C-alpha cells in the first residue's frame, strides 16, 4: 500500500439471505397461526446468495478508477458497501478521507419544497454542513442556471431544471473520495458535459479519488485510466482501461440471452409448446451484448404435437424504456411441411448496422388465426447493443433506435447519387 492510497479494499464478500416467500407469513395473524401450529420450526426458509467474493483493490489519490461489469456482476453491491449503505459480510475497507457517494441525482429532493430549500436539504443529505452550503450556494445556483426560480417549489420546475439543480448540488460536493454511479446519464447534453468537466476539475486540481461505476464501456474509457472488471462478484481484471475493456467484451456474458422453459412452465396451447428462445451473435453463440456492426439472430425453439397449418411464430421488440421497435413472424416461410409435428426452430436474422446502442427486450408469440393457438409471452428476454465507434470527437450516442450505415456522397453538381 503506497503512501497515497486513499481507498483500500481487502477481501470483501457479501452474502444476501433471501427469505423464500412461500413459507413466510405476511400478516400478523398468519404469523401467530404458524407459530401456534408448529411452535418450534423456523418458518421463513432462507437461501443464500453470494453477491461478492473476495474483492480487493486499492485506489490512490488523484486517480479515477472505473468499475465495470454486466448487470448483476456485483457493481451496485460494491458501491453500496463502499458508501456504507449496506455492510459487508466479510473483509475490510479503509477509506482515508471524507466520502461522498452519488448513487442518484436529487436524492431527497422534495417536490413541495422550493429550490432554495432543496439545495440545503440535498446538500445536508450528501454530507455538507450548513456553512459549506452557504459558501457554495451562489455557485450552485449559478451553475444550475435557475436563479429566477429559487423560491418556487420544485414541483413546478421543468424536468430539465429539476435535474440541473440536483446535479449542481452534487457537483459542488467536495469529498476526498467521490463515488459515482451511473447517474450522469440524465439531463441535457450540454449540462452533462459541464458537470463532468466540473467533477474532473475537482478531481485533478485537488487530487481527489473518484470511483466511477458503469456498464458503459465508452464512458469509462473517456474518464478513467485504470479500471477493474467485476464478473459474478469477483474481480477478474484490474489494469489499464483499454485492456480491461477488451476482456469486458470478451468474457462470456453472465446473462446470455437465452430463456429455456421446462416441461411444466412452458407457454403452450392447442398442440404448440415453446421450448426456448435466444439471441445469437454473429458467431452463432447466445449473447446478451451485441456490437452494432455485427449481424445477429433471434432463435425460437418450439414443438408441435400435431400438424398446425397456418401457425405463425414471432416476436415483438421494444427498448427497455418502452419504445416499440418492431415485430416480425415467420409466416412468409411457413408451409405445410414445416408445420408438421416435431421439434422446430424459427430463426430471424438481423443485418449489421441496424439497431442503435441501447437495451432491448423481446416478447414472443405464436398463433393460428381463428385457430386453436394464441400465445403472447410477457417481455422476457433482454439484450443490449453496444456501439464501439460512437460518434465524433466526444463519442456520444447518436439519437434514435436505428443506427443504419447509409450511403452518402458529396458532389458539386446535383444530384450526387445517380
Amino acid at each position, binding site marked *: 500500500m503506497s503512501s497515497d492510497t486513499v481507498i483500500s479494499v481487502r477481501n470483501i464478500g457479501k452474502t444476501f439471505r433471501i427469505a423464500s416467500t412461500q413459507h413466510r407469513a405476511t400478516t400478523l395473524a398468519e404469523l401467530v397461526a404458524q407459530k401456534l401450529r408448529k411452535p418450534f420450526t423456523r418458518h421463513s426458509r432462507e437461501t443464500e446468495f453470494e453477491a461478492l467474493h473476495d474483492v480487493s483493490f486499492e485506489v490512490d489519490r488523484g486517480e479515477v478508477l472505473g468499475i465495470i461489469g454486466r448487470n448483476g456482476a456485483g457493481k451496485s453491491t460494491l458501491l453500496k458497501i463502499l458508501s456504507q449503505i449496506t455492510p459487508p459480510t466479510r473483509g475490510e475497507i479503509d477509506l*482515508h478521507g471524507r466520502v461522498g457517494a452519488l448513487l442518484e441525482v436529487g436524492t431527497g429532493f422534495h417536490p413541495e419544497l422550493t429550490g432554495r430549500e432543496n439545495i440545503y436539504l440535498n446538500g445536508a443529505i450528501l454530507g455538507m454542513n450548513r456553512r459549506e452550503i452557504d459558501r457554495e450556494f451562489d455557485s450552485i445556483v449559478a451553475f444550475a442556471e435557475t436563479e429566477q426560480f429559487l423560491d418556487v417549489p420544485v414541483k413546478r420546475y421543468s424536468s430539465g431544471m429539476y435535474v440541473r439543480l440536483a446535479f449542481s448540488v452534487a457537483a459542488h460536493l467536495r469529498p476526498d473520495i467521490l463515488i459515482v454511479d451511473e447517474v450522469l446519464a440524465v439531463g441535457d447534453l450540454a449540462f452533462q458535459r459541464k458537470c463532468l468537466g466540473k467533477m474532473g476539475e475537482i478531481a485533478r486540481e485537488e487530487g481527489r479519488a473518484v470511483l466511477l461505476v458503469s456498464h458503459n464501456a465508452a464512458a469509462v474509457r473517456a474518464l478513467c485510466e485504470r479500471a477493474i472488471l467485476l464478473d459474478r462478484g469477483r474481480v477478474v481484471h484490474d489494469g489499464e482501461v483499454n485492456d480491461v475493456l477488451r476482456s469486458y467484451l470478451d468474457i462470456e456474458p453472465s446473462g446470455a440471452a437465452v430463456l429455456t422453459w421446462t416441461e411444466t412452465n412452458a407457454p403452450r396451447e392447442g398442440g404448440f409448446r415453446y421450448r426456448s428462445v435466444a439471441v445469437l451473435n454473429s458467431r452463432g453463440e447466445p449473447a446478451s451484448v451485441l456490437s452494432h456492426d455485427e449481424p445477429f439472430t433471434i432463435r425460437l425453439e418450439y414443438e408441435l404435437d400435431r400438424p398446425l397449418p397456418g401457425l405463425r411464430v414471432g416476436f415483438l421488440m421494444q427498448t427497455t424504456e418502452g419504445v416499440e421497435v418492431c415485430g416480425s413472424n415467420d409466416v412468409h416461410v411457413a408451409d405445410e411441411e414445416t408445420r408438421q409435428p416435431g421439434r422446430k426452430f424459427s430463426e430471424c436474422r438481423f443485418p449489421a448496422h441496424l439497431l442503435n446502442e441501447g437495451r432491448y427486450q423481446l416478447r414472443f408469440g405464436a398463433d393460428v388465426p381463428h385457430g386453436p393457438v394464441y400465445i403472447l409471452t410477457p417481455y422476457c428476454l433482454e439484450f443490449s447493443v453496444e456501439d464501439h465507434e460512437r460518434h465524433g470527437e466526444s463519442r456520444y450516442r447518436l439519437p434514435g433506435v436505428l443506427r443504419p450505415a447509409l450511403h452518402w456522397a458529396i458532389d458539386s453538381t446535383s444530384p450526387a447519387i445517380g
Partner: protein
Amino acid sequence: MSAPVAPPEVEPLAVAEPAPVSAKPPMVCIRPPRAWEALDLSGLWRFRDLLLALAVRDIKLRYRQTVLGVLWVILQPLLGAGIFAFVFGRVARLDSGGQPYVLFAYAGLLAWNLFNGVVLKASGSLVANAPLVSKVFFPRLLLPFSGVISALLDFGIALVVGEILLLISGQPPTVSLLMAPLWLFFSPAAGHRRRLALRGAGGRLSRRESTSCPVALQFLLYASPVGYTIAIIPAGLPRLLYKLNPLAPFIEGFRVSLLGHGLIGVRSSTYACFMAVVIFLAGLIVFRRMERQFADVI
C-alpha cells in the same frame, strides 16, 4: 451511462500538495457488523445539520401542505377534548376533580398527543424515508429523532393554546406549571422507547408495523388517564395494575402541572421514569442491531 462523455478539457493547473494521508489512521473503516456495537455518538453529532434539515423539512411540509396547517394542530386536541368532555363528563359523569372537563381533557390530550405523535412519526420515519435509506449513508437513528422534533413543535403550539384557554377560564398559570417541562422531557422518552421497541420487533416486518401500530395506540389511549383521572380506578389491586402502564403517571403528572390541581405520586413517577429510560435503552440496542440491515430489507 450513455452520456456524451467528453474528457474534461481542464488541464491540471497546480496539483495540490498531497499530504501523506496514509500516515494517519483511516477516517472510515468499514467492517462486517458485530452483534454488539457501541452507539456512535460522534457520528450523530457530525450529522447534526442533517438532523436539523430533516426536521425542518418535515415541519415545513406539514404546515405547507394542509390548508388548515397550524389550525389543525390546535383543532385536533380541542375537538378531542370536546368529545371526551361530552362522553366522560356529561354522559358518564366522571369526576374531574372540580375542574372544567374540557380543560381537564385538553391537558390529558396534550400529553397523549405528544406521545402519540412521537410514536407514529418515529415508527413511520424509516419507511417514509426508504429512498434515502437505500441511497445515502447517515446514522439511521437521525430519522426517528427528526420525527420527534417535529412532534415536539406540534406539542409546543398546542401547549400555548392550552395556556390561553386556562387564562380565558380564569385560572392563571400556577407555579406548578414549571413542572410541566419535566414531564415534557420524559414523555417523549417514553414514546421513543416504544417506537424503538416496535421498530426492533419490526425489523423485517417494518411495513406491517405501520398497520398494527395505530391499533395498539388506540387501545393505549383508553388504557391511559387521558379522558378521565386515575382517581376513578378502584383503589387497591386494580389501580396498582393500572399504574403498570408507565404512560399513566406521565399524563397525570403533566395534567396536574398544567392545571395546578392534584397530587403527583413520587413512587409511580419514579417507576414511570425508570421504565421510560429502560425501554428507551432497550429500543436503542435493538435499533442498533437492526440498523445495518435496513437498506437490504426496505
